[in-house]
């Protein structure tokens, strides 16, 4: 079943002194997220990630288009009881303690009074804030506030969780904890839609990712598919203290570290390269095809369209990119 269906959602703001000049924050976004999926929305700062989330949360209103969340129109009040949201750099009522805040949100989310207190305690335990539960939030560190933010997002056991930059500003330990929590949510069968510009997190957590830049969705794909794509290059590691000239003449990019050499060269030069190693009597450690990293996919999608030689996806390669491209041209997804 589809968890989120975004249909040509668009947002522009009027800017300038007289507010006459329209500025496009989000350009006709079309995206589908399946239930139980962990989807990473990637893009640099100001790309349109937060605008998309705000539109879906009903905090800003779309200029055009619509979206359906869990089968209901996004402005249907019933949607809100089934979703959780963590805004970017969350700020909460600092006159409240973590326990009071969670209790307040539980009240607003319609958690039944009988189970409310137990649910709040369970959440405090889950995010590791039990000892600080009675402390006013003004005394909390950034990492602690982020944990409170996560707790309030999942407090009412939502089916779908939206997280805006959940790892932003956290130390490595904090990031690890957030990653673990997202993994747990996946195991519980929740759908997670999170925005980030930390690619390693997206690569480790997401089933699929979408890249957005300058308000435009540049690409969507399954992480496993994107990172398994071969790049027509091979990486050879062998024992040596300097790079053999024969290898350099084959176009290898090599670096020496200690008594090991790491060389990357075109796939068609594989046999010739092995011949050089045999001739020089060098010991081969490994030979692996170079696969594309998520970072490379991300950088490629961020480049202006005219400099992307493979902007139109290859057949059978990135199916969703192709589908997206077709829908953008009005052919239909």
């Amino acid at each position, binding site marked *: 079943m589809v968890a989120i269906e975004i249909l040509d959602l668009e947002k522009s*703001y009027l800017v300038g002194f007289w507010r006459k000049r329209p500025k496009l924050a989000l350009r006709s976004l079309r995206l589908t997220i399946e239930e139980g999926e962990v989807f990473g929305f990637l893009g640099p700062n100001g790309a349109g990630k937060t605008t998309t989330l*705000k539109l879906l*949360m*009903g*905090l*800003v*209103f779309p200029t055009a288009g619509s979206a359906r969340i869990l089968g209901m129109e996004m402005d249907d*009040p*019933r949607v*809100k*009881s089934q*979703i*959780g*949201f963590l*805004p970017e*750099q*969350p*700020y*909460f*009522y600092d*006159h*409240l303690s973590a326990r009071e805040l969670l209790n*307040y*949100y539980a*009240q*607003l*989310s*319609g958690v039944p009074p009988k189970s409310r207190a137990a649910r709040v305690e369970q959440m405090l335990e889950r995010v590791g804030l039990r000892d600080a539960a009675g402390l006013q939030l003004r005394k909390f560190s950034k990492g602690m506030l982020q944990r409170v*933010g996560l707790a*309030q997002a999942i407090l*009412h056991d939502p089916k779908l969780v*939206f997280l805006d930059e959940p790892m932003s500003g956290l130390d490595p330990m904090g990031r690890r904890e957030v990653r673990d929590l997202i993994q747990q949510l996946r195991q519980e069968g929740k759908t997670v839609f999170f925005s980030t510009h930390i690619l390693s997190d997206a690569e480790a957590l997401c089933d699929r990712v979408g890249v957005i830049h300058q308000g435009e969705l540049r690409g969507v794909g399954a992480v496993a598919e994107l990172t398994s794509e071969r790049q027509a290059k091979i990486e050879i590691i062998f024992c040596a203290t300097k790079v053999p000239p024969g290898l350099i003449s084959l176009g290898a990019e090599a670096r020496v570290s200690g008594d090991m050499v790491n060389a990357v060269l075109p796939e068609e030069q594989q046999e010739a390269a092995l011949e050089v190693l045999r001739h020089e009597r060098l010991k081969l450690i490994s030979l692996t095809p170079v696969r594309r990293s998520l970072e490379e996919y991300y950088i490629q999608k961020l480049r202006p369209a005219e400099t992307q030689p493979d902007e139109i996806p290859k057949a059978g390669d990135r199916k969703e990119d192709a589908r997206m491209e077709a829908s953008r041209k009005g052919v239909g997804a």
Partner: protein
Amino acid sequence: MNSRIGYIAFNTFREAVRDRVLYNLIAFALLLSGAAILVGEISIDIERLVVVNLGLTAVSLFGVVIAIFIGIGLVSKEIDKRTLYTVLSRPVRRWEFVVGKFFGLTGTLVVNTFFMAVGVFLALLYVAHKFEKMDVWVLAALYFIVLQFLIVCALALFFSSFSTSLMAAVFTFALFVIGSLSEDLRGFARITPGVGGWLATAIAYLVPNFSALNVINQVAHGDPVPGRVILYNTVYALLYSAMAISGAVLIFQRRNLK
């Protein structure tokens, strides 16, 4: 009352009572009531009049300052600090948020007024040594002061639903001052011919009639407040507040929370 409105109102009340600034203002108002005793003691035969006049004026002024100070921040502060995002991403409708905030602030002001009123009555007891029958009208004046707070809260919410905190404070305070002079404005409208007169009449009816809600001088002299006036003022304050809150809701419903 819808339970979500109740929860929002309670949280607003809790936020206000945990704010130290509130206590400073109440302490200052009580100090002024205390000072009224000193002024009363040097005013031979009019001690009661001075205490009631000064005491109730202090309650009214500090209450208005509190209403504006807290009221303007109710919506704009929540937008600036983004606390609103986690509230509106729950099954809370925007009108429920605005109405809940209004009730929360009104509740805060009623409790404040109660404590400040206790101060006034203690001061009155100190200078007069006993309560008299006419002191009951002081309660009517206090009730009208609460009605003023209701309107000021609604106006503060209305202005803060579309402008910055500073501008909302300026607009609300300006309307309070103009509204307090609305009787004079109506008098001016009556004697002004032509367009100027029409304009003055329109403004006089548009701004809240705070002067009708100010019976401090009347009760200080021990004059009764007719039941008819209490009824009219109650209906007027409720209608005016409802209109301002409806305006705030209409604007806030359409507002993009950037």
